[in-house]
């Protein structure tokens, strides 16, 4: 099984120009982002394929390229994996299409769903959203307690998502997270590389404190 990345960046190609997306992603990968997820529900599949192929060209093998939801696009674009929404195709179905070497992640919003996803062969989970976030307005975060519960109920790596930035990433990692997924803290920044680096620093701090 492939190594699961720690610092994930989620981008949405429909909200910005191709050039800007490329620039942001290149900078974030320079700062230490290890996996770039393309999540775009409004983009037609053929355009999505173009965007994924462009991401691959931009970052080469310096970071993983993960396609949200669409296993077919991931296969065609030679992505490193697919990330399935909680109500997406089941991970076992995705595995049969993608084979053993690709990374398959699943978003979950309950402990039950986490256990199910693990049983169906997910390589890692996104659990959240932890803090309140602009991506999900009006929905209070599920909090760190929820996150800790998920981490304790499965053996596969759990990534925190939802309102995570350089300031609070350490709290998430302290609960046993394998890593974090970030959207606006990196994408809305003038310096995606610096923010990515700051979040990476939070990882090192946690790791130093651990026995």
């Amino acid at each position, binding site marked *: 099984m492939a190594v699961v990345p720690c610092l994930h960046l989620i981008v949405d190609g429909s909200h910005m120009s191709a050039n800007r997306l490329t620039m942001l992603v290149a900078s974030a990968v320079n700062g230490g982002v290890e996996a770039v997820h393309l999540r775009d529900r409004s983009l037609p599949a*053929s355009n999505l394929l173009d965007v994924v192929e462009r991401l691959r060209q931009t970052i080469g093998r310096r970071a993983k390229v993960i396609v949200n939801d669409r296993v*077919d696009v991931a296969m*065609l674009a030679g992505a490193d994996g697919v990330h399935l929404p909680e*109500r*997406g*195709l*089941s991970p076992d*179905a995705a595995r049969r299409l993608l084979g053993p070497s690709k990374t398959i992640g699943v978003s979950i919003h309950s402990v039950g769903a986490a256990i199910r996803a693990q049983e169906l062969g997910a390589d890692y989970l996104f659990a959240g959203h932890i803090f309140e976030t602009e991506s999900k307005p009006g929905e209070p975060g599920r909090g760190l307690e929820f996150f800790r519960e998920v981490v304790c109920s499965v053996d596969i790596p759990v990534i925190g998502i939802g309102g995570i930035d350089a300031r609070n990433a350490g709290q998430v990692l302290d609960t046993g997270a394998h890593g974090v997924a970030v959207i606006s803290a990196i994408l809305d920044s003038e310096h995606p590389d610096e923010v990515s680096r700051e979040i990476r620093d939070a990882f090192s701090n946690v790791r130093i404190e651990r026995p």
Partner: protein
Amino acid sequence: MTSARENRLTRLDEALRVYVLTDRELSRGRSEVDIVRQAIAGGATAIQLRWKQPSMYEALEIARELRAICRDRDVLFVVNDRVDLAMAANADGVHVGEDDLPVAATRSLVGESMIIGYSPPTIQDAVLAELDRADYLGVGPVFGTATKSDAGEAVGTGRIAEVSRQVQIPIVGIGGINALNASEVVAAGATGVAVISAVVSQEDVSVAARELRQAVDGVRERSS
């Protein structure tokens, strides 16, 4: 060497007679499984799962059920838009449109055994799709339709005739087709007709499918 392709095309000449697309919103509260069972009982020869809801998990469960029902009755089973769903459900075919994955890319994913349908916006797209190895075309909207709000202006049976002169692969007409006008579509050169509301919205789905089947078979017998 072309036997996989020949097998697909031979099957399509029969299977495209009455092609029913599902639509949950238009089915008056009845499930896809109910609608499909009744449509097949009436004589539908192909079923397309047209899934517009967010849950792909549920889509795969339903696709697997429809897959089994269609296989039992030797009816063609096609999945709309999502090639991964079609592959995961082991469907006979996948149908892609302008905004979906391109035909050539779809073929590279599904291999030779799966049927690929395509909806060409223009005649040139129809010709290119055949070169990219689409197996059949859905051409329309033949008549005005309220079902697909994004379907555009009606192209008439003239478009069916024109496309059928330009390509070798079979065509189904779609858009505003019912038992009264289906024969015109087949007479213009279509192998069969594709319908949504003319079957799934009818009180008696089975009778609706039967009437369409009779209209299509009537023209095909006269012309054969």
